[in-house]
């Protein structure tokens, strides 16, 4: 694919995005709640498209397709176990929404700090999220770099791709906060779904239609259709990959923060149904796309290059390939901008005021905007260095955020949970994650996330039981919303 053509498409996409950002800006009011949560007034359809776009990142058509190429059908199981984890939204969505309205929370870390009566806990969760989500964003930007460079045969350099992605993410975020992020997300969700379906239909047709495609996979790649298949997805590898992702909806602040933002419960319901529908469809498309790569570009040394290779070699006409490249580029950007916005809100509200007490909301918001730029700049810088440490931290990120899950579950379901228990659990769990990751040690062949999660649960329960719970024993989070939940017929 020629670089000029890709640049033209990028320009068109950027122009459309800028129009969306400009429209979003016209609605922007003052204050942190408006900037970070769009005034808690996001409608159902935008919420659905935005949630889906944030959670289903560029990983789908790049990483998941690559995982299918490498390990076969296990990739489908992995993604659908995550999908089943979206069921957590039915328990936590209404609860987080209710306490958010009642107490005016803007960040998930602020919510946890208030629940356990510990600003220190809020700060710890905020810092930890930065430490692991900045590397995760780096990998997204690096993905853009590889994608653009791969599909144009080097016509666009990896570094140019990183800078381009970072620049657009910064504009999408600074423009109008969550409003511009959510609206550009919605644009992206439509682009990626339409282009991915078109690309898949084209490639299957080029392979001789569905009958031939399915028959050839069975004949030529039979092991890829069974578990553990060609070998990648051993049972414990599968467990280690799926466990952190099952809890993604509550462990990752850039998605759990969205639960504060819907305008009402009808919008939250639309968000959940829309995300589930988009997710199931997009999962199947990405998996079949990965299988098609096995037939069209077999024997790649690096399975992560399955999609760029498929798009580069003239296998797909430019009219299909270029929009898909834009869709994937947009998907990576929407993940980076959501993370930058969430981290900015957490640092602005939960870390900075501790360093500078009495700093007020205007100052807080200004700090947040500086943090947005710093987060994106740091992500781009780390991506351009291509350090091993970055991919290591990125891999560890899902396991590290998993250690916050006992604290989150306890906030709504266990009166006896304490701040000391939460702090100790998160610190011990993170310590185990890093120690295992850095040393390469394995405990009894168990995957690392299983070990660190078990440690986090045990420490949370153990330390909570020997320390004093907050005076109100979490009343505002448990008893205080029970009647509302019952009337809403929520479990």
């Amino acid at each position, binding site marked *: 694919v020629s670089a000029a053509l890709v640049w033209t498409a990028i320009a068109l996409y950027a122009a459309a995005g800028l129009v969306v950002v400009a429209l979003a800006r016209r609605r922007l009011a003052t204050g942190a709640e408006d900037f970070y949560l769009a005034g808690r007034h996001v409608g159902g359809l935008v919420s659905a498209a935005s949630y889906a776009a944030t959670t289903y990142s560029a990983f789908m058509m790049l990483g998941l397709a690559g995982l299918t190429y490498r390990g076969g059908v296990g990739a489908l199981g992995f993604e659908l176990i995550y999908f089943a984890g979206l069921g957590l939204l039915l328990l936590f969505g209404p609860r987080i929404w209710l306490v958010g309205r009642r107490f005016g929370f803007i960040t998930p870390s602020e919510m946890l700090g208030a629940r356990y009566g510990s600003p220190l806990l809020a700060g710890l969760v905020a810092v930890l999220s930065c430490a692991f989500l900045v590397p995760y964003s780096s990998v997204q930007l690096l993905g853009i770099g590889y994608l653009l460079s791969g599909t144009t045969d080097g016509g666009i350099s990896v570094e140019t791709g990183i800078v381009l992605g970072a620049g657009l993410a910064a504009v999408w975020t600074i423009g109008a906060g969550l409003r511009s992020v959510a609206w550009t997300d919605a644009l992206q969700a439509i682009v990626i779904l339409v282009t991915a379906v078109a690309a898949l239909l084209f490639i299957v047709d080029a392979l001789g239609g569905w009958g031939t495609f399915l028959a050839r996979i069975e004949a030529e790649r039979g092991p890829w259709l069974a578990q553990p298949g060609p070998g990648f997805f051993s049972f414990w590898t599968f467990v280690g990959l799926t466990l952190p992702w099952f809890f993604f909806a509550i462990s990752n602040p850039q998605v759990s923060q969205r639960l504060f933002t819907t305008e009402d419960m009808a919008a939250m319901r639309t968000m959940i149904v829309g995300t589930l529908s988009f997710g199931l469809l997009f999962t199947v498309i990405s998996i079949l796309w990965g299988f098609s790569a096995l037939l069209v570009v077999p024997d790649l040394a690096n399975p992560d290059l399955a999609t760029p290779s498929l798009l580069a070699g003239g296998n797909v006409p430019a009219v299909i390939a270029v929009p898909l490249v834009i869709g994937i580029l947009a998907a990576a950007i929407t993940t980076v901008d959501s993370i930058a916005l969430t981290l900015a809100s957490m640092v602005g509200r939960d870390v900075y005021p501790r360093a500078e007490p009495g700093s007020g909301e205007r100052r807080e918001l200004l700090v947040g905007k500086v943090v947005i730029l710093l987060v994106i700049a740091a992500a781009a810088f780390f991506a351009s260095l291509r350090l091993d440490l970055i991919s290591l931290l990125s891999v560890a990120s899902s396991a590290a955020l998993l250690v916050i899950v006992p604290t989150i579950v306890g906030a709504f379901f266990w009166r006896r949970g304490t701040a000391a228990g939460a702090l100790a659990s998160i610190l011990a769990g993170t310590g185990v994650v890093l120690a295992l990751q850095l040393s390469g040690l394995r405990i009894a062949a168990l995957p690392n996330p299983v070990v660190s999660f078990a440690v986090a649960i045990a420490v949370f329960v153990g330390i909570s039981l020997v320390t004093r719970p907050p005076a109100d024993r979490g009343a505002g989070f*448990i008893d205080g919303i029970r009647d509302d939940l019952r009337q809403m017929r929520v479990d």
Partner: protein
Amino acid sequence: MEETMRLPLWAAGLIVLVALGYAVPYLLLSETEAWSGAFLFWIVFGGVVWGILVARVAFWNVHAAPPRRAPGPEGRRP
């Protein structure tokens, strides 16, 4: 964890389903090198998960949500 919560039926069903999502492909379908094996199983799995969750939220009484309170001087924090 305390008397506050019994596991709802849909959640129990989801947990059983997820357990099957691990067990069936590894125990029963590890030799089936065909689309009718683990692929079909997981597609049905995804469809059933979708059905359970959508059916449950359809039962929500979304109009019973409390009206938004103006953030007053008291009660900003629990």
